[in-house]
């Protein structure tokens, strides 16, 4: 009698819709993948991946795959679903989810983008890529998110990260990346973006001061005020005027980070040169 009741309950559990169903698989019998490259993880595995990739990426920030894995491991249960709902709530977002466009170095032809007029989004994107010395190389594939549409939403967020850099003008150095991550947290609410801010400990004191005084406030303010950047159909906005797009989204650009750093570096160099000259003069004069 007892076994009958528990079997009955078990069958009723399996009949529930997917998000509410209790996990019924273990490491040794994983369910079949929902899309190519999908690896269903148990809760323990996901927790271990989150911890491992968090510490791994803090130790070595060049491990983009760990940052990607951290994002996927911490996106469920709520955050990636919220992002997908945000895309569904917007007409352009719905179109993006329907078409599922991908940004790779093949689909984004840099030569064509460089030939666009000066103030367009595409030209700004190509110019930013050239200035920073990066390419729209294929980002890591999403693997650990179970629902295919949510997996696409995460993939889209990852691939449009460079566009966020381009539209805000922030560079790839760690200071710039942290500012963009803070902006993305206020805009997309993905936990990985907030967790990456722990990397603030790797900044030098002057950079940290600048970050907390200027860039963090800019990022959070603009991120909350702006429209969801994941809902921008970048492939269609390549020829839009960049100021028009910024106004439409509600983004103001922060002070140019590279310029600020360059000015400070030049000032320091000048001061050091002046000090050396004074010392040499003092030595000659026998002071």
């Amino acid at each position, binding site marked *: 009698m007892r076994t009958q009741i528990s079997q009955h309950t078990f069958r009723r559990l399996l009949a529930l819709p997917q998000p509410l169903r209790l996990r019924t698989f273990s490491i040794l019998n994983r369910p079949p993948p929902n899309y190519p490259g999908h690896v269903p993880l148990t809760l323990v595995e996901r927790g271990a991946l989150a911890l*491992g990739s968090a510490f791994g990426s803090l130790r070595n920030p060049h491990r983009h795959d760990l940052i990607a894995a951290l994002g996927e491991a911490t996106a469920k249960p709520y955050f990636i679903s919220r992002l997908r709902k945000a895309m569904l709530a917007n007409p352009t977002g719905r179109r993006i989810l329907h078409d599922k466009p991908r940004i*790779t170095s093949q689909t984004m032809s840099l030569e064509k983008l460089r030939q666009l007029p000066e103030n367009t989004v595409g030209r700004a994107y190509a110019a930013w890529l050239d200035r920073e010395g990066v390419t729209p190389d294929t980002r890591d594939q999403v693997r650990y998110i179970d629902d295919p549409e949510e997996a*696409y939403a995460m993939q889209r967020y990852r691939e449009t990260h460079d566009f966020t850099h381009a539209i805000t003008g922030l560079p790839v150095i760690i200071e710039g990346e942290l500012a963009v991550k803070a902006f993305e947290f206020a805009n997309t609410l993905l936990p990985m973006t907030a967790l990456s801010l722990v990397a603030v400990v790797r900044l030098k004191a002057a950079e940290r001061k600048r970050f907390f005084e200027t860039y963090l406030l800019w990022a959070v303010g603009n991120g909350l005020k702006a429209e969801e950047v994941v809902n921008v159909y970048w492939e269609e906005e390549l020829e839009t005027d960049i100021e028009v797009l910024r106004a439409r989204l509600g983004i103001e650009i922060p002070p140019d980070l590279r310029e600020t750093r360059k000015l400070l570096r030049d000032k320091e160099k000048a001061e050091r040169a002046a000090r050396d000259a004074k010392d040499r003069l003092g030595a000659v004069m026998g002071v």
Partner: protein
Amino acid sequence: MAALLPRATKRLRLSPTSGFVCRDCRRSFASSIRHGQQQQPAPSQHVFQSDKTTHFGFETVAEELKASRVRTVFSSVAANYDTMNDLMSLGIHRLWKDHFVRSLNPGIRLTSTNTSSPHNAAGQTILDIAGGTGDIALRLLDHATTINRDTATSVIISDINPEMLAEGRKRFATSHYYSTTTSSPNRRVSFLEANAEDLSAIESNSIDLYTVAFGIRNFTHKQVALQEAFRVLKPGGVFACLEFTPRLSNPIMNGIYKRWSFGAIPLIGQVVAADRESYQYLVESIERFPSQAEFAGMIEEAGFIVPGKERGDGGELEGGWEDLSLGIAAIHKGVKPV
């Protein structure tokens, strides 16, 4: 900032509980992946004459492809090979390898009775197969030199993969067995890039000891490799193999071990080596390896005498191998008849 509060709360209010989207609007993620990849160059395909297939982990591949797939796996794991071994086995692989070498006792200890023999002056010739990074070879040479005071024994390290051999060269560069400055013919370690199924570079009946540690499960044709081992060994020569077993005999320990293998190891591979797939292949290839009794049978079939074996009640071989760590790994030995 307060003016931003309504926007922020609106963001949070987008509750994910009702996940309904009609099926027509939901094109599969799979097709978007295919679209994103369609510009990439297609892998070179050619029709194979035979349709003989073999296993590559849990995948089935054409036989001709397995060797190159294995080579690719080991090219990507070569750089972190030793770190990953330590993490995956929690350092226990060092104990296994030490025990393996110690039980083989390489090197000829010169005593008053055998000093006159000319064979002993030349030392032993050891062939370490799939020994790319050289950890077994180094142990063999150290044991021969330090414990048996034999400075003539030499090791040939053979591997199918050049990156693994490069790691081996790096390891030996700082040892005194391989000085790159002298061109002395008595160099005690040499490197050979070869497939274990085709050791035509090595003469028949020329090797005293053939070792293969954690390599044979990757071979496409294990029986062919065993036959090559039989050919190159001298009569009286010893074949020794250290390899993982497909399952432990104790079901509870087996359950824990399998969950570690299939859960933790690919995860460690992802975090440390940025390569989940290679480590997934490694644990799957362990599953596919024959059991200790079956493998001892294969060694006998190649012509070796397997010491310590008995035929059990079911006709299966028993006792012809040594289990290590509750059966996670096993040492198989065979002797070529004189």
